């Protein structure tokens, strides 16, 4: 699979690590992030989640995030796969891999990526819980919002 993907198939972290790391022997570190479906959310007992994406724009937004990260951490390469469709408790919804000569850059780029995903990637969670269902709504997506970008960068470098 390419470094960026939005897919209904189960995510494979090891495969993405190999995809990102095989092109270089300059790396000294790989940082990864795996987002999971959690059993509890805002006091509700979650049964399962359904993820919906505007797939072509989601892919573009993920590519944009990788380009943004490259400006700050020029020596770091990133891969991001986001899953769609029905996910059971404990399943991975997103995997992020950041490879760099230096661990600080790998950690920071990985954190930056997940913060930006939550800000600008057109994907939605439909939460099914005991007693009902609800669409979760977070940020108004605006890739040009410099304040949001700065917030993500600050969190990444904290």
């Amino acid at each position: 699979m390419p470094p960026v993907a939005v897919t209904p198939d189960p995510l494979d972290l090891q495969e993405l690590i190999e995809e990102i790391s095989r092109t270089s022997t300059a790396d000294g570190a790989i940082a990864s992030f795996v987002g999971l479906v959690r059993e509890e959310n805002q006091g509700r007992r979650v049964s399962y989640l359904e993820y919906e994406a505007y797939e072509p724009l989601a892919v573009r937004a993920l590519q944009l995030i990788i380009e943004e990260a490259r400006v700050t951490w020029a020596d770091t390469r990133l891969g991001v796969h986001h899953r769609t469709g029905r996910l059971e408790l404990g399943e991975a919804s997103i995997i992020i891999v950041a490879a760099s000569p230096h661990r600080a850059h790998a950690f920071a780029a990985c954190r930056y990526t997940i913060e930006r995903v939550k800000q600008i990637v057109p994907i939605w969670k439909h939460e099914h819980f005991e007693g009902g269902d609800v669409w979760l709504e977070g940020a108004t997506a605006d890739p040009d919002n410099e304040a949001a970008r700065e917030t993500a960068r600050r969190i990444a470098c904290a």
Partner: protein
Amino acid sequence: MRVTIRLFARLRDLAGSGELVREVASPATIETVWQSLVDEMPDLRAYERTMSVAVNADYAKMSAKVSDGDEVAFLPPVSGG
């Protein structure tokens, strides 16, 4: 001219469909398309202040021009990850 309107998540539920094809008078902007949509489905107006919009799978402003055959998407606040 004819445009395809894409709706996602709760906007899709409210409209009862994720894809609508509508005739709009030319020239048109995303704003024009949105106004005719909320005239038809007033419940959608709740998202006017918080949604994002896209033309042909690229983020855009409400003032962006829309051409015949374009795909216009209205996106509720996102919650991926």
